[in-house]
């Protein structure tokens, strides 16, 4: 597989006192024709990384390669990379068609050619009827699609998307996810998508890089990131998780802080060493009786398609179990009822760091 973008030891430090190390030491390979997502909370360095790729920032150190060529010091206009900006940044003084044709004209395509390709791009995003309008005569979702068409029109080798869906409402966001996925497949362009929305990242990406505090925490496909997070930050940031401090008893046994024993996967951690266990709340089962951790339902959060039960454990501590409701819509337990939480050993993950 060819690598579209390669980072080696890429760093960006903004001067100041103290200097801000926005990107600490990034090593990353983004494959050709991949939908790649940079995921992290605000201030994690994902936007800095995107701006470095686009050419709006110059790296402090490290290498940045595009299909093998070092582009770290090329100005943005010399990079065959286009960006869909968070606030669209459409040119307000140009028609939709002129906006989309802008990049093509700068690439010295003839006027006729530029207009033809621009019209094709507008067809692709279902906006051909709006080509004569000004951007401010369009809705947010339409502006978003114009921004997409404008960035795709010059057929860049890599398309950068900076939280493009964050300004849209929920329904529109969901339909745009599918649309983006489709466009990526149809055009075969490598997409680098920046978001803080984990759901978005899981739904669309081929692979995800989770970032925090200027560092890449983990790179992997959505299932790996969700099922086997490498550290507590990734586990907490993607989805929900119940964490326990525990002591390894050797083999598959772990002693929880409240004294109870939990069976989990086998680990290399030495007997008596401190570990963190966690599981996803939807992987535990809430029962009336049986084996497991006993406790009492302290709180219920109704989520529509499921319900979160906060269980106070009899031996101390609390955890959250996410469970589907009964088919008739009633809850499976009420506040105050005694329950048993059954955790499948296969659902338990062990973090040794």
């Amino acid at each position, binding site marked *: 597989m060819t690598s579209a973008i390669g980072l080696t030891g890429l760093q960006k430090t903004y001067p100041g006192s103290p200097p801000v190390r926005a990107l600490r030491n990034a090593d990353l390979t983004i494959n050709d024709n991949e939908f790649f997502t940079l995921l992290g909370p605000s201030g994690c360095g994902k936007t800095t990384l995107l701006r470095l790729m686009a050419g709006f920032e110059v790296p402090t150190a490290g290498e940045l390669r595009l299909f093998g060529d070092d582009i770290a010091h090329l100005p*943005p206009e010399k990079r065959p990379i*286009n960006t869909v900006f968070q606030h669209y*940044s459409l*040119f307000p003084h*140009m028609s939709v068609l002129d906006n989309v044709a*802008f*990049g093509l004209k700068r690439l010295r395509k003839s006027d006729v050619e530029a207009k033809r390709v621009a019209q094709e791009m507008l067809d692709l995003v279902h906006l051909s009827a709006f080509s004569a309008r000004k951007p401010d005569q369009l809705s947010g979702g339409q502006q978003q699609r114009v921004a997409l068409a404008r*960035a795709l029109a*010059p057929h860049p080798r890599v398309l950068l998307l900076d939280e493009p869906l964050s300004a849209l409402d929920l329904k529109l966001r969901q339909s745009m996810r599918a649309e983006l996925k489709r466009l990526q497949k149809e055009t075969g362009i490598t997409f680098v998508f920046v978001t803080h929305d984990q759901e978005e990242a899981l739904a669309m990406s081929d692979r995800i890089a989770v970032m925090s505090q200027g560092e890449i925490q983990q790179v992997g496909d959505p299932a790996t990131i969700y099922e086997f997070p490498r550290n507590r930050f990734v586990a907490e940031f993607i989805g929900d998780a119940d964490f326990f401090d525990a002591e390894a008893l050797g083999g598959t046994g772990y002693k929880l802080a409240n004294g109870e024993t939990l069976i989990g996967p086998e680990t290399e951690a030495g007997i008596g060493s401190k570990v963190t266990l966690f599981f996803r709340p939807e992987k535990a089962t809430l029962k009336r009786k049986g084996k497991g951790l006993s406790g009492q339902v302290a709180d219920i959060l109704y989520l529509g398609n499921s319900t979160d039960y906060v269980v106070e454990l009899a031996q101390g501590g609390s955890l959250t179990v996410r469970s589907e409701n009964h088919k008739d819509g009633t809850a499976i337990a009420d506040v105050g009822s005694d329950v048993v939480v059954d955790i499948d050993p296969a659902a338990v993950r062990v973090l040794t760091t």
Partner: protein
Amino acid sequence: MTRLVETIRSHAALIPATAMIGLFMIVPILIILVYSFLAPGDYGGVKPEFSADAYQRLLFQRDLFDQLVFDPAYLKIAFRSVWVAIVSVVGCLVLGFPVAYYIACQPEERRNIFLLLITIPFWTNLLIRTYCWILVLRDTGLINGGLMKLGLIDAPLTLLYTEGAIALGLIYTYVPFMVLPIYAALERLDRRLIEAARDLYSNRWVALRHVVIPLAMPGIIAGSILVFIPALGAFIAPDLLGGGKNLMLGSLVQLQFSSARNWPFGSALAMVIMAMVLICLYAYARSSKKNGGGMVH
């Protein structure tokens, strides 16, 4: 009756503004308009008798036999004035745009300092500031003296009392009027649009031409109008730096009210200047309406 009171009350807030404009704008213009149709008094002022002579004089002269002959002297002055005003506008634009752009790119606190610096010349009397240019431009002045000392020229260049000197004086005087509205437009400009242009294969200059300048156009046009209007009627710079040799409309008007003592003719000239300005403004309003709200493509 009560309805009348209601109407008056609801418009009461407009009274100060209306009075202000009426008293200080409409009334003086009407006086000038009336004066321009009266006969000149012997020692200045006007005689209360109707006469269109003032307007006739703009284009025609009475020869020895009391016949009206076409005389383009004043027309030439008008053209020269318009020409110098246009040169001033272009000069102010060339100087003012980079300054405004530079200021708009500065951090917020520093912008205000720069804006203050732009307005500093206004603290000194215009006459004195214009007079200083004489010291700079004259044969024994700063420029000629400096160039001769350096041995670059043998004889002083004729700098003073030229149309160029007038334009220079006007540009110097009015460049703040160009900087401020352009700055206002550029300050509002979304910097991310420049990034978007850069991202779409435009270098700095192409982004400037296709994004920054079009979006700054309302400011550029406002600045051009603010420079053009006073430059057309200016008389201090033409008098001092042009030496009164090449008459300008502004000096001509001033002359009619002072030494020539022909108030109706001065008034008629003032009306003509105003008409010219209004025509320019009307043309601008028409063209901006066509292009949708002041945006020029």
